[in-house]
């Protein structure tokens, strides 16, 4: 009686095969990429913010900050790269909250798609957007006087580290979006971790200028070690220690928030 198109399955709540989960994720990523392409103004905004900070650091504050043994522009532009991908992560929280609010997530949940696909597809599409804005930041950075002082391989490794950092944090932002369920609230809630990571760090000014109690945190938090590793990879200098720390931080954040986000997503069917 049924057309052969109907997929009839038996058995209980068994897991989908990895191949089907990948198909589902690709479908969600495609959906989100189509949406990104159709709202270019959003892309412009997410590039505009780091671009503004770049100009601010380079021309407004840069003159007052001394970097021992280097130029400030080479010091701060790698931090702007990281900031660009972090802002890309914020769009993940806003987008997910929007989907929850619009009711489209109800449709997703009523379909036999992999549970992780909605989140994985979203973070992957936002990653693509982050790579675009990172590329634009490289061009802008070069335009304001930033220069690479290392070989191509370490430079690309530095870019990879930045992208991985951004991807890991997009899962933290996914969790924020799922927990707040409201785009405006998600946006406000996302600013706090952004400011703590960005300014209680070695990203913009050297840590030695900060009060003593803040220094241990500012030196070792994930953004600081990533920016230190990125600077070393792009500008030369010993990189291994900070690269390992950055990889460890990003992996830990990815694993933890992947699990938490998935749990919060599923708890939505309370």
């Amino acid at each position, binding site marked *: 009686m049924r057309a052969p198109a109907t997929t*009839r399955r038996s058995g209980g*709540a068994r897991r989908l095969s990895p191949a089907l989960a990948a198909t589902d994720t690709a*479908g969600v990523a495609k*959906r989100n990429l189509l949406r990104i392409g159709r709202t270019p103004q959003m892309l412009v905004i997410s590039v505009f913010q780091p671009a503004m900070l770049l100009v601010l650091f380079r021309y407004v504050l840069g003159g007052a900050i001394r970097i021992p043994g280097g130029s400030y522009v080479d010091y701060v532009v790698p931090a702007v790269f990281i900031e660009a991908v972090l802002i890309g992560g914020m769009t993940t929280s806003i987008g997910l909250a929007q989907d929850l609010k619009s009711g489209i997530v109800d449709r997703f949940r009523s379909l*036999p798609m992999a549970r992780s696909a909605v989140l994985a597809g979203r973070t992957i599409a936002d990653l693509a957007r982050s790579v675009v804005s990172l590329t634009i930041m490289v061009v802008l950075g070069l335009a304001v006087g930033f220069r690479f002082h290392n070989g191509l391989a370490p430079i690309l490794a530095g870019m990879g580290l930045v992208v991985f950092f951004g991807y890991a944090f997009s899962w933290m932002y996914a969790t924020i979006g799922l927990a707040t369920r409201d785009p405006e609230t998600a946006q406000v809630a996302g600013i706090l971790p952004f400011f703590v990571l960005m300014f209680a760090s070695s990203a913009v000014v050297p840590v030695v200028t900060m009060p003593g109690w803040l220094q241990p945190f500012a030196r070792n938090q994930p953004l600081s070690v990533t920016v230190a590793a990125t600077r070393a990879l792009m500008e030369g200098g010993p990189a291994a220690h900070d690269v390992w720390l950055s990889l460890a931080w990003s992996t830990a954040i990815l694993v933890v928030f992947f699990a938490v986000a998935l749990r919060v997503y599923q708890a939505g069917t309370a």
Partner: protein
Amino acid sequence: MSPMIEVEALEKRFGATRALRGVDLVGEEARVLALLGPNGAGKTTLVRILTTLLRPDAGRARVAGHDVVADAAALRSAIGLAGQYAAVDELLTGRENLELVGLWYHLPRAVYRRRAQELLERFSLAETGDRLVRGYSGGMRRRLDVAASLVAQPEVLFLDEPTTGLDPRTRNDLWAFIEELVAAGTTVLLTTQYMEEAERLAHRIVVMNAGTVAASGTVEELKEQVGGAVLSARVRDRSDLGRAAALMAEIGGGAVHTDADQQQVDLPTKGGTPVLIAAGRRFEEAGIGLDDLGIRRPSLDDVFLHLTGERVAPASPEVA
């Protein structure tokens, strides 16, 4: 004929609100089960539990043989859902919306592309299918949402107020389409505010009120519950409404209902013409001017009123 939807002692609460307080019902294969009930009765909550969007607090429910909690994954492959509020993607075209749903049901690409095209044509969206949904009217979104629920030709279809906001012609189209689906073997559970829709489509009706099943049965069975007939008087002068209601209560037979908007007083009755004649005489003696007095077969609307104490939305939906 076997049950495709089985619900037993289902309960759900949201904080202090008891949205469902022990619901039992059965939906037979290839039949339409209509859920009727005033706002807040728990219809959407029940649909959301049956489609695995919510977990029940107590009780059991199975759809197409799959438990809503233990076999949720398998259940999702067997159902289609068009929820109360259209869940379509504004920034995709109608076709993209349908094709992606097909992909997520794990249909082969060629199949879901063909299905998307068929459904666009069937729901009069063929011309607009390649435009962004952002530019669709409310009725077009609603149709696309229903179409999305049909992409995988589900065994059981859940439609939560599917024709709210549709114009009469489109509503009729959708009714005809649902009839076709059911003739081909699909089981349908729909909620509605429109008696006309329930009378036309439903093999069985469940009237819900405040989280419980107030009554269930075929349209005819439900009408029997109200009594044989309804004595209905419309007063000329609104100020006579109270006296008219008191007078009807004296005649007796059932609970009197006053509808102030219509200036009308209704009384379920088992008596026939003699009751009508007696009532006419009493109204005359009391000096209450009437625009209309008559005995009619109860409508589903009367059943609803009788069971829930509320009139449903307009008897016929307004044009969107």
